[in-house]
């Protein structure tokens, strides 16, 4: 399975929660109302704004959809080689 690197920029995140709606297994909001990254619903401590996780193609597509839904483009997704998959550069 491919591994992807997901990163939330907490400075851009405004807690609109679109990502939580689309991919709740990957994103939840913390008490500062910022999205943090989960690994398949699991919450490996400490909570973190970025994480490398193994995903199926289908899961990856859904995470990109979640990132696209973010109105402040605060979610960045990279592939294993560090190539940015979203946002498009």
């Amino acid at each position: 399975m491919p591994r992807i690197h997901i990163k939330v920029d907490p400075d851009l995140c405004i807690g609109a929660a679109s990502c939580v709606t689309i991919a709740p297994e990957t994103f939840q909001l913390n008490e500062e109302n910022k999205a943090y990254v989960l690994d398949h619903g699991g919450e490996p401590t400490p909570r973190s704004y970025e994480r490398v996780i193994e995903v199926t193609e289908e899961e990856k597509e859904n995470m990109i959809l979640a990132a696209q839904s973010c109105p402040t483009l605060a979610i960045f997704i990279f592939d294993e080689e560090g190539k940015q998959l979203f946002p498009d550069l």
Partner: protein
Amino acid sequence: MRYVITGGGVAGTTAAEELRKRDASAEIILVSEEHHPLYSRVLLPHYLKGKVPRERVFLKKESWYGEHQIEWLTGIVCEHLDTRNKFVGLSDGRELPYDKLLIATGGQVRPIDHDVRGVSYLRTLDDADHLVQLLAEQPAISRAGIFGGGFIACEYLNIFAHFQMPTALFHRGAYFWTRSLEPSAGALIHKHLLEHGVELHANTQITQLHGEKSGLKAGSGSAGDLTGIVTAHGEHAVNLLGVGIGIEPDFSWLQEAGVETGVGVRANAFLETNVPDVYTAGDIAEFFDPIVERHIQAGNWMNAMSQGRTVGKSMSGERTEFRLVSSYATNALGLEIIFVGDVERVAVEQVHIVGSVEEGSITQLFERAGRVVGGVMIGRNQDRTLITKAIQERQTVKELGIC
């Protein structure tokens, strides 16, 4: 199949994208009043504060439309609808036939009656560009005013604070969001703003603007530059006024065509209007929400984007009910404010309050027919996930268990 979408914002553009995914050969025409490719209105405050450069507010490139065979008409609005012969009349005089039509035109800002250079609105990218210009022109000692008591007023508070401008806020109601908040929640917000140096004027209308011709700036508008605003309580020196008193959709052309409207364009849970093959989505839609079981209008990003996707599915033939508990989160000078679900006081039976002004945080729970249908959290982010879940699962206030 020929799809016509009027409104180039996130609802209309997402619908176009979804339609193209599902139907490679359909004709898709997107009619947009604005000339910009899709951008995020939510990013405009970040752009104004210099957090992101202007080019980062765009969500689509100009080339995207052509690449997806979406005919993108800019600078054009629909002015006429013939539901019998199934065509729309455009502002450039053309008539555009459709098989299925989506109305996703959002809303226009409600203006004040006076126009002087120095008055700002905040809805479109052009509005934001104008504000950037106004901010750049401000003299060293400059005072800002805000007219409004809602989400846009919060954005102006943060923007003017970022530029360290002393700010006076005027609103017509007794406190912010009078249709949703109880007096204690309103008092909490006022207290926070006062503690952060905002000069507050509640229950106030602007009756006049004062402007002065500036000899230094040639061609800076015939009415002169803003120097003050007049209310029933006197005159206040203000060089820049941010106005956020709501949006009003223009749907006279739809009413003439027999499309049912209320506060928005009325639709069922499938986002279908009363007219066959005419759909609606986004800020303009007043849709039946099957979760809270009444018609609501939701002016937020999550709602607009999700409705665009759902309506695209339905229009392509996979009739899909729209189900979402959407929310709107903002921040007023550091105080977090979140609205979730149905938060209209007159439409519920009881509003429960958790917290207090003294504690510095308040959550309001909206209850109807024994169920939680909405919540407002002020300084209590921790309640958000639970309340969202309670609305989705139609829990009782007791089951939710936070008060």
